[in-house]
């Protein structure tokens, strides 16, 4: 590091004085002139970093806490584990790939594009093998979709567990995918051999050691499923399935097979381990629901939240959150500040795409009194996000997956928020 990049002790002292001035602020007047304004700062005098210093940039060091994080004790090994998107600190709707949550069953693998092969076999007219370059020659589409792990918020079945929206709701990301519709690839192999397409299935599996496979009904396969090779404009990250992954809009993340290597048309569901032992939902009486693919409408306030306390005291406060539905578009989000007694319609930051995250806001004048913050989403089918109580009445407490309950944050007079459950 050369001299000019080192913060001088003087600059440090000035900076802390400024911080002190800042903390009295919030008040509309200052007693002393702000040295950040009256003194010439280094950055306003010395030149900064030249181009190409970082050929591929990471966020500035001051944002280094905005990272995905795991909760070690949840799983036996980080190789078959999950971590969480820092949704508390993100805004808008697009999740940067570098902090989008990861879920691996046998670790993320490094595969070159040149080594990539995709096979289509089973009930097709001509079984085919595609290279990455072949995929690039099919007509492409671009869509923004959310990908949510079915286990997102799963801990909350047992009551308020982890204190942080990153940990209660962070198994989700939202990216713009570029890819080839799966129906185009099926069409290339020819579905004549499958006969009547009703009750036919497509089994998809990955190239990693877990060879995680799922069965997708033909109707969905021909609808909006994408074989994607880009996200947010750039190549997929290794941890998200580079070079090619499946995108199954609105459906649970486990079906979005990464490093997808094979697509088999079949007359029955494979009922693999991932669709029997896992990703099935045990009801109160011990029977289990299977094939619960769609992620129902859900929303959560990302700020204020336990990792995002209110630090500015009374006055104007932006309540910001995310809403999404696997059934289509979000049409409305309501916010309550008193634990569900009174609801106010939130403002949608921008109409989200179908099966994509929508940002919502409620701009309020906080009086400094405690709040019980909740959000409630509605989607284009008229479905209203349920309370924890409604979910438990319908399913018991053991289903692990598909918990789309209304989340409550208790915000105290100091602005500190905590994950709680309410009557």
């Amino acid at each position: 590091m050369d001299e000019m990049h080192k913060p001088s002790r003087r600059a440090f002292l000035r900076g802390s004085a400024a911080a002190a001035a800042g903390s009295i602020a919030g008040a509309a007047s200052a007693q002393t002139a702000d040295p950040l304004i009256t003194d010439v700062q280094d950055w306003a005098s010395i030149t900064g970093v030249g181009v190409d210093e970082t050929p591929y940039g990471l966020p500035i060091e001051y944002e280094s806490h905005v990272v995905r994080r795991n909760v070690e004790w949840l799983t036996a090994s980080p190789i078959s584990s999950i971590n969480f998107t820092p949704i508390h600190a993100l805004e808008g709707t697009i999740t940067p790939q570098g902090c989008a949550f990861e879920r691996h069953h046998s670790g993320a693998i490094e595969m070159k594009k040149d080594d990539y092969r995709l096979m289509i076999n089973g009930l097709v007219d001509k079984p085919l093998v595609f290279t990455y370059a072949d995929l690039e020659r099919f007509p492409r589409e671009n869509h923004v979709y959310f990908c949510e792990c079915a286990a997102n918020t799963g801990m909350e079945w047992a009551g308020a567990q982890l204190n942080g929206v990153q940990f209660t709701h962070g198994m989700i990301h939202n990216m713009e995918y570029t890819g080839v519709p799966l129906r185009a690839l099926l069409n290339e192999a020819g579905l004549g051999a499958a006969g009547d397409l009703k009750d036919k299935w497509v089994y998809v599996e990955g190239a990693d050691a877990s060879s995680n496979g799922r069965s997708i009904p033909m109707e969905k396969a021909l609808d909006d499923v994408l074989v994607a090779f880009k996200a947010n404009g750039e190549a997929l990250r290794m941890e998200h399935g580079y070079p090619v992954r499946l995108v199954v809009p609105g459906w649970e993340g486990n079906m979005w097979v990464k490093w997808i290597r094979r697509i088999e048309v079949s007359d029955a569901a494979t009922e693999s381990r991932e669709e029997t032992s896992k990703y099935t939902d045990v009801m109160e009486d011990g029977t289990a629901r299977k094939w619960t693919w769609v992620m129902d409408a859900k929303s959560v306030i990302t700020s204020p939240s336990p990792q995002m306390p209110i630090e500015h005291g009374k006055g104007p406060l932006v309540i910001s959150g995310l809403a999404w539905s696997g059934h289509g578009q979000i049409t409305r989000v309501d916010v309550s500040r008193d634990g569900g007694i009174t609801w106010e319609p939130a403002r949608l930051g921008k109409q989200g795409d179908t099966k994509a995250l929508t940002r919502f806001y409620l701009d309020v004048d906080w009086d400094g009194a405690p709040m019980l913050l909740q959000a409630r989403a509605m989607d284009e089918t008229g479905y209203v996000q349920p309370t924890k109580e409604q979910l438990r009445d319908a399913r018991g407490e053991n289903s692990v997956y598909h918990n789309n309950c209304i989340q409550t944050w208790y915000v105290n007079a100091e602005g500190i928020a905590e994950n709680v459950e309410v009557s």
Partner: protein
Amino acid sequence: MSKSPNILLPALGVTGIVLGGAYGTMTRSYKADEADIARAQAQAAEARLVSQEEANTDLKSQIALVQDTAKAKIAELEARPATVSLTAPAPMHDGAMGLGREALVEEIAAWDVDVLPDGRGLPAGTGNAFDGEELFADKCAACHGDFAEGVDNWPVLAGGFDTLADEDPVKTVGSYWPHLSTVYDYVYRSMPFGEAGTLTPDETYAIVAYILYSNDLIDDEFELTHVNLGAFEMPNKNGFIIDDRPKAEYAAWSAEPCMSNCKDEVTVTMRSVFLVNTPEDGGSESVMNNATVEGLPSFTSAGASFIPEAEAKVEETVEVAAAAVEEPADEGAALIKAGEKVFKKCKACHAVGDGAKNKSGPQLNALLGRTMGSVDGFKYSNVFKAAYDEGRIWDEASLTEFLAKPKSYMKGTKMSFSGLKKEGDQVAIIAYLNSFLGD
């Protein structure tokens, strides 16, 4: 296929709106241009002392002309068949495009090994639990236990019968899995963890038979083969129903929601079980939350019943220094407490304290002064066996070095742990482990 018209329509609907908007903008800028011309004309006209009314009429008629043209263009665009719209979905080719190449039979055979519930897809083979027991002990028991009972957090494969309706159901191959095909399919393709794809069909049949045997579902002479596997009935085969949310939930949860006076009073019934610290070097540390619901306000439509006194702010760090500040009276105790937190990183594999048993790693009681690799009944790697034979002893120095970088201090160790990076953590954990020297 019947679905495809439905797929196209919504997308095109949106397209229509977008185009309409774009055209609106175009119309406006046309108007602006025309207005500029008209204004210039008006000035010229004024200069020539032509009456203001005349100029206005001229402007109006020009605007009308532009509007008519725009309307006609919009009508023309709307009348065009929707397929030429600018954001249509990727076109479907009529028949194949000739991309890719035909898959060879041996390529399909190599990859297409998944097994369907009725047993289709099974390779020829046979195995029994007697042979399976040894294979399982060798290849699976380190994680799943000798009797498939599961070690630590690793999956349990046996038992749990009649627990599915309990508070904490135990979902195992025996108690939960509906098809035996899935066990074969999963073990053959995905296990052993870290060495997937190395089992032969006969080994797999034997291991699957052993898992059935551990679940008391067969005796040890039962021959499991590709012929009888598909028809084998699992205890929970009728335990699953197809997603009934549309019927059971969607209708009931689609009413217009309440907006005001939805409840009389709301109280907090539970607070977060864990507070989660988010250290700068990543990951997270869960700490039990001792706060209770007592002393929290209740809520009515008038807001919170009262404003509680300021609560102590939760400490965000787990640094040794921070722990020391908590209990300045006894630095040693503080260090041990800090070490206890660091030990969370080891807990998945190691136990320490009264009655500590071996998990996937050896128990760590009385570690300092203990011979390396010396715990009875634990299967150490060769490098640990060698250390034992040499009589090497754990002391602070060797332990610090080992914990900082296990794999470089003990080349070939099977302890899958990357190491404790922070010196403070190393000091703290040794202090913590040292507190179990007494017994």
